[in-house]
């Protein structure tokens, strides 16, 4: 029970405090006067409801569970309670609570109740208890809608003691407030007697009026008690109404009741005009503020907008439909009126058409019409669906899906044969067309960037690396050359070249008798093996050649070469073969080289050992091909004594580097190298080549005296010969005149080197300036000594260290939005110009904040609702 009391009072307090708090934002300090002045208008039903709500919550919470749990609401309550200077609720509002009805909204009712109560006290004569019961009941009734009827029992007890304070229940809210505040002060005074039992107080207040008259009171005998002396209209009318003879009296009673209820309370004195005005102004200002506050979101949006495009509020453009326009249309010009008349005359206007349709329809039965409609609808539906589907399919990006679609489409289209079956003429025409197209393509687009590979390469665009680009260029070049060749030479030349090649191959076949070591069986076997391989290669090549000529593949002369040095070009993708057997050589390289040489060496009749060794310097020489030709002297030490070099390794090297193979399979590096060599060969004049030739011959004579060697070298492209000669010279020099390279150098680039030296001397002449005059270059003159620093004589005055400066760590003169220097600098770092930004980015970054439409009135924003 006690708990309930406490909670009740607590809730009540909360309600009131909340009222005060709601007003607290008007002025933070509210004095008594103001409270009185504010009166009913601020203590609205809202606040009361809130209070009741909170009260209920509190009660249910406390009834349901222990007091130990404190939720956030409770915390708030505690805070607001604390505002009443830290006294317990019980002390404060034990009395106050019962003087008032649950909420301000119910205050107007309370006076009635109080009067009734007093009456009942009078009439029943039962005293306080019954009155309290009544009171309690009424109270509970009033609260029943708030769900507090279950608390009735509790309240009876509580209500009892406050009986005598009914006097305070003057209907006016202001008075209540007044009393509330009085109570506050009163309770404060009585803060000490908390333990005073409530029943004692209730007993004290139960005053039973004395009865002096003997007669029963009625319309003729009125009681004359001091406290119950008041005679109300009710008292007088009761007997007559009890008799209940006329309805008019009832209505009179009702009106009288109303009168009595209002008359019963004295009107509160109005506030002073100035005070009242002030209160009104406050309220009005609050109302205006609230009204204006509705613009807050709009204003926020405007303030935060990056760009404001005026007019801000565009009134919705009226979307007029075509039918609307048509209905409103009235011919204004002559032409329009003429057309209108024509239409009217020929009955082609909308209404006429409808009419004719209707007429036609009228001949048909209803079923027919419906079926027609259904058909039409179906057709429309189908069309619409097909359209939608097509649209959907066209939007699908999946490549596989599109591929499948394409295949399906192809399946649906007739093949040439099918066409042939159906219509032979059309098929022929189609075939002819296709052939023509193919021929045209063959003629025009060959060796252009139309192949799949080239297209892919092109698609990469800029991403191609150097090698790929070179390849592409080589291909194009090749195509160009081919075309040129075809145009200039024609078919017969190709045949000639082919014939010559066949002759050469036949020359290879001629076999000689062997003797000596070579007659031995293992040698013969080896020879046999080698021969077979060579044979097969030759066959292959022959077949290739035949195929090529049959295909119409061209054989091209290399630039600036005689007819003997040939470059066979395979047709398909412009492969360049400098050696007829290039492709095969990669597979059968080692076995091929040796047998050829062996067969040729038969003439010399020298030992195989010498033969091998003699071959080596020549074959090993291309090892240096990797280095550019300008630095032979550096590479020489690598093979100072060629005789000591491992023959197998050298042979391997030779195999790899000796021939220039440019084919599909060949590496990019080797291809490019070949191109480089070719270039070099072109630039080197022919004279030097001629001069080198004897040297080569000399060295080869020393090693092996074979005519074929010469012959073969001649067949080799020029650049290769050039390489060999360049290398051979030092090799020979190494064998005959040891370590004499410097002299060679001097001989070779004598004038050039001399010139360079002179130039260098000239450039660095200033560095070797001799100090001719004294005093120049140093202040003290030549030879003066610099004195040592004397630390004891140096005086150091410590200044203000950067850290000790007043503005240490603070950014100096930074404009407003920036907080650090780096931030500010980075803002300047990013350029906004069109050169450094995309078009869109530039436009975006330079868009002004306010965009106005020329010649448009900008109206102030207004409410659009």
């Amino acid at each position, binding site marked *: 029970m006690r708990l309930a009391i406490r909670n009740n009072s607590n809730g009540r307090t909360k309600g009131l405090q909340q009222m005060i708090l709601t007003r607290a934002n008007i002025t933070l300090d509210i004095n008594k006067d103001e409270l009185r002045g504010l009166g009913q208008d601020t203590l609205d039903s809202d606040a009361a409801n809130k209070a009741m709500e909170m009260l209920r919550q509190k009660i249910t919470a406390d009834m349901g569970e222990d007091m130990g749990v404190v939720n956030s609401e409770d915390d708030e309550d505690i805070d607001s309670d604390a505002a009443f200077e830290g006294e317990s609720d019980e002390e404060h509002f034990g009395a106050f609570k019962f003087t008032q009805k649950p909420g301000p909204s119910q205050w107007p009712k309370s006076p009635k109740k109080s009067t009734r109560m007093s009456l009942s006290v009078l009439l029943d004569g039962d005293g306080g208890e019954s009155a309290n019961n009544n009171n309690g009941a009424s109270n509970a009734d009033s609260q029943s809608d708030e769900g507090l009827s279950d608390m009735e029992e509790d309240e009876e007890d509580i209500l009892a003691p406050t009986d005598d304070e009914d006097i305070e229940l003057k209907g006016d809210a202001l008075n209540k407030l007044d009393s509330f505040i009085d109570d506050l002060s009163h309770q404060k005074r009585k803060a000490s007697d908390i333990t005073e039992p409530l029943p004692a107080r209730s007993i004290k207040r139960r005053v039973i009026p004395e009865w002096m008259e003997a007669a029963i009171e009625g319309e003729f005998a009125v009681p004359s008690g001091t406290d119950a002396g008041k005679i109300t209209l009710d008292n007088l009318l009761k007997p007559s109404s009890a008799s209940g003879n006329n309805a008019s009296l009832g209505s009179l009673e009702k009106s009288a009741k109303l009168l009595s209820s209002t008359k019963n309370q004295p009107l509160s004195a109005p506030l002073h005009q100035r005070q009242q005005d002030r209160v009104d102004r406050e309220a009005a*200002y609050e109302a205006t503020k609230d*009204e204006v506050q509705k*613009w807050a979101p709009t204003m926020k949006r405007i*303030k935060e907008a990056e760009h404001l495009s005026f007019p801000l509020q565009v009134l919705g453009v009226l979307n007029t439909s075509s039918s609307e326009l048509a209905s409103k249309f009235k011919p204004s010009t002559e032409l329009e009126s003429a057309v209108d008349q024509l239409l009217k005359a020929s009955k082609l206007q909308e209404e006429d058409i409808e009419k004719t349709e209707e007429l036609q329809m009228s001949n048909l039965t209803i079923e027919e019409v419906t079926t027609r409609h259904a058909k039409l609808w179906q057709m429309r539906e189908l069309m619409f669906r097909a359209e939608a589907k097509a649209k959907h399919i066209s939007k699908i990006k999946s490549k596989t899906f599109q591929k499948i679609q394409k295949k399906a489409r192809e399946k649906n289209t007739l093949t040439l044969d099918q066409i042939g079956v159906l219509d032979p003429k059309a098929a022929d025409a189609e075939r002819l067309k296709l052939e023509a197209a193919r021929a045209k393509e063959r003629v025009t687009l060959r060796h252009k960037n139309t192949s799949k590979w080239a297209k892919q390469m092109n698609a990469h665009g800029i991403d191609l690396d150097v090698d790929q680009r070179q390849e592409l260029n080589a291909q194009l070049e090749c195509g160009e050359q081919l075309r040129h060749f075809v145009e200039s030479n024609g078919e017969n030349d190709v045949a000639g070249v082919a014939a010559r090649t066949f002759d050469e191959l036949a020359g290879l076949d001629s076999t000689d008798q062997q003797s000596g070591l070579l007659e031995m069986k293992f040698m013969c076997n080896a020879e046999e093996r080698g021969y077979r391989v060579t044979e097969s290669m030759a066959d292959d090549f022959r077949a290739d050649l035949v195929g090529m000529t049959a295909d119409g593949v061209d054989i091209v002369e290399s630039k600036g070469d005689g007819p003997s040095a040939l470059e066979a070009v395979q047709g398909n993708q412009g492969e360049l073969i400098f050696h007829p057997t290039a492709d095969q050589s990669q597979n059968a390289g080692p076995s091929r080289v040796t047998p050829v040489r062996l067969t040729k060496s038969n003439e010399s009749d020298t030992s195989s050992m010498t033969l091998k060794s003699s071959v080596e310097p020549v074959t090993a020489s291309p090892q240096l091909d990797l280095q550019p030709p300008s630095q032979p002297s550096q590479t020489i030490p690598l093979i100072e004594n060629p005789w000591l070099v491992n023959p197998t390794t050298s042979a391997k090297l030779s195999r790899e580097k000796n021939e220039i193979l440019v084919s599909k399979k060949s590496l990019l590096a080797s291809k490019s190298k070949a191109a480089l060599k070719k270039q070099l060969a072109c630039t080197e004049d022919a004279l030097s080549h001629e001069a080198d030739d004897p040297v080569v011959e000399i060295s080869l004579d020393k090693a092996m005296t074979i005519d074929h060697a010469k012959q073969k070298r001649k067949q080799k492209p020029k650049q290769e010969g050039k390489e060999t000669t360049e290398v051979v010279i030092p090799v020979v020099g190494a064998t005959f005149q040891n370590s004499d390279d410097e002299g060679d150098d001097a001989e070779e680039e004598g004038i050039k080197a001399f010139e360079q030296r002179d130039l260098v001397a000239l450039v660095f002449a200033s560095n070797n300036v001799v100090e001719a005059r004294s005093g120049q270059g140093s202040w003290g003159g030549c030879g003066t000594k610099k004195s040592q620093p004397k630390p004891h004589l140096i005086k150091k005055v410590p200044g203000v260290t950067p850290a000790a400066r007043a503005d240490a760590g603070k950014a100096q003169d930074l404009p407003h939005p920036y907080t650090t220097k780096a931030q500010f600098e980075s803002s300047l770092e990013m*350029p*906004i110009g069109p050169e*450094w930004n995309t078009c869109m980015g530039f436009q975006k970054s330079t868009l002004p904040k306010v965009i*106005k*439409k020329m010649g448009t*009135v900008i109206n102030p924003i207004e409410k659009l609702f």
Partner: protein
Amino acid sequence: MHPFAKARERVRALNAAKIERMFAKPFLASLEGHIDGVNVVVRKAHSLAVVASASADGEIIIHDLPQRKHLLRLPTAHKRSVTGICFADSDRLLSCGVDQTVKMWDVRTSLDEDGSGDLGENSLPADGSKPLTVFHGKTAFNAIDHHRESSLFATASNCVHIWDETKSSPVMNLNFPTSTETITALKFNLSETSVLASTGSDRTFTLYDVRTGKAERRLVFQMRANALAWSPTLPTSILLASEDHNLYTFDVRSLTSPTQIYKGHVAAVMSCDWSPTGTEFVSGGWDRTLRIWNEGDGRGSEAYHTKRMQRVFSTIYTGDARFVLSGSDDGNLRLWKAHASEKLGIIGGRERAAREYRTKLREKWKYDPEVGKIERRRHMPKSIYNTSKLKQTMLDAQRVKEERRRKHSRAGETKPKAERRKVVVAEQT
């Protein structure tokens, strides 16, 4: 990124600043006709071409801006000075004067769209010489403003009267109870249309609401405010032109201190008006300049002046926010560009892009010393230059004095007060 991008942009910014200064020629035209100083200029709503001006000799002229002609002249609209005019709607004009009358004029006949109805210098329309209605007051009127939507209008005299166009006497009197002041200016809020604000002669600013019919709050300043204007885009924001050379923006939701102080004038500010965009406003001062401010930027104002322009009593923006009009004591109405270096006429796409780029560059590089110098430097008339120097000296002296006072008082007794806090002396409820 290009290695010289930054350097190049800086040079461009510098050039842009120079170009902007070179083309900064804001003065467009002088609309003559008034014999006395122009007290009020107002623009007609929903129109770019038509403005009305009233002068101290009681004449009202309606101008056509594009043709720079008079559409209508009302030479003796009022006896003595006309203190306020406003358009009631597109074809009626309200004017008030010190002769204690408010007159409603029909200006429809002369306001034909094609300008064919305009009249010569001397000929007067028959109906133009006589007002439609005359409203009589008991005191001289100082200002008038029309409600944006309804037929109400408000006049300022010893109190604020709310009138209905159809009624001969005011429907409402609004005043702050204890005041004995004269209301000098008043304006209806443009968006929250029932809210009204006024300035009074005893250094006050008062807020009213027609719905509640009450003066709701009053502020007392250090010095009186001469004019006020509600922001067209921010309905809570109000601009006050003060006698203390400053302009203030207030938020009516919290009137304890201004949201921004705008310093620049060297004499009392006599008038102010917001740009329709709400991002700028113009003010005219006793210092014979009019200044254009950016909202929220308290310092950087663009000052317009000419040799013959006297005290500027009235300033307005045109409806498209491109031009500014000023009416001054010398009897001329002057037309200015709102942005001094703006090019008039049609601008192509490329040129527009270039202009926008230049503007952005200037904005970006304004903290660069050289660019900033060009941007900031203005040649002012000698009088204004000297006055501003003098004012600075005085302010410095004041500051020093304040500091000394504080230094010689007990510690903590006098605390420095923020400039914003000094503005409002009292907020009365």
